[in-house]
């Protein structure tokens, strides 16, 4: 059902944890639906120097958060905002159709964390957030 890449990121998640006093925090999902992602970012000069996640959810949700945080490490905020759910799913060598919403959630989590940073730092609104 899952690609090897998904299983690898599920069994050995990258960037798992929470950045203390993070510069941006994005929590998305709903426990009733069975998925919650919490993305925390360390941002220096508009660049993501660290990204971590905590996720309640299935293997696809955990792997999507792991991959999404990998994809945005070291990226500028604009570059990170351009990372789509499709890019996350492709990097995972695909997700089953009923699990694509997990990659959407990862994209939303990143957008929300960047928005949170920009709101707190009085910067302009995130594009497409």
């Amino acid at each position, binding site marked *: 059902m899952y690609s090897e890449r998904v299983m690898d990121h*599920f069994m050995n998640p990258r960037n798992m944890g929470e950045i203390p006093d993070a510069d941006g925090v994005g929590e998305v999902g709903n*426990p009733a639906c*069975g998925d*919650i992602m*919490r993305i925390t970012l360390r941002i220096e000069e508009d660049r993501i120097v660290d990204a971590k996640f*905590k996720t*309640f959810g*299935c293997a696809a949700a955990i792997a999507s958060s792991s991959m999404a945080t990998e994809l945005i490490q070291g990226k500028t905020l604009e570059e990170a905002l351009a990372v789509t759910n499709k890019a996350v799913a492709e990097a995972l060598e695909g997700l089953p159709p*009923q699990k694509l919403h997990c990659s959407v959630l990862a994209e939303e989590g990143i957008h929300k964390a960047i928005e949170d940073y920009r709101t707190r730092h009085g910067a302009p609104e995130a594009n497409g957030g």
Partner: protein
Amino acid sequence: MLPCFSERFGNPSSVYALAREAQVTLEKARGRVAAAIGANPEEIFFTSGGTEADNWAIKGVAAANRKKGDHIVTSAIEHHAVLHSCRALEKQGYRVTYLPVDAFGRVEPGAVEEAITDTTILVSVMAANNEIGTIQPIAAIGEIARDRGIPFHTDAVQAIGAIPIDVDSMGVDLLALSGHKFYGPKGTGALYIRKKTRIGTFMDGGAQERGRRAGTENVPGAVGLGRAIELAVAEMPENAPRLAAMRDRLIREILETIPDTRLNGHPVERLPNNVNVAFRYVEGESILLMLDSLGIAASTGSACTSASLEPSHVLTACGLPPEHAHGSLRLTLGSRNTDEDVDYVLSVLSRVIERLRKISPLNPER
């Protein structure tokens, strides 16, 4: 069973010697199924499985009694074979009462009595639940239905071989069973229909199964089913207490050693092979995949393993909030499981839960 695929391949509906032999074999299998549930052989009809048997019982009784009434009483925690059959009938204008269950998943017999009206034509309550293992008060419900002259169907797919079943003492008029639940072949099952029960045909065609279920019989399947049910019932007095002891140890030690965990289903009125627990802050599919990587096959009521993205209707009906239902784990014991298997599960489960809780943002100890 195997010879029926090769040298003894006769079609029981034909007249040649090989066919007569197949017919004898088929009837022997029918007798074994009947004996297992206290029925007469001519009340046993082979089907393609439990799902077909449930469909036939519900839709067949509904169709044959349409002039008499249009109301069916069932429970909220039935298998989808029953629930979706009822939903299909609702679309045709029938009315269905889905009785609630208590926190342990039990149907209150008094609620069945209250739900019955002058137009009720069928009561259908499962003998034991497939997810949480709760055993229903079938004999009490059967007595109520019998007093009101209403046919009583029970989905006994999970119960056969696990608890004693007797259609007469339980007041059952229709009973669905499935071969692969007691080590018979997949794609085999049967419907018990008490004599004189008004029921329509489900499969139309040839005169097989005394004209009530058309289609050339799955002779090897029926033979496998017959032998399997005979063994399951014969071994039950030895197997059931052994499995129940392993079940109780699993439940006790999981609840004792892993915090924020609860038992789903009934503590006592429970199938001997069923363990179902909910772990807070983690999701069931993740638990299953980690257990699978450790060689343990289990299942969950989490939405994430279903296409519908809805958590288990059974756990929800028991009043479990969705976020707890998502973290449910079902372990089913088989007759070959040993105390060492239980030790192994217990030795790895707490680590799996701990690991997933570390990843979870819901865990208050983060």
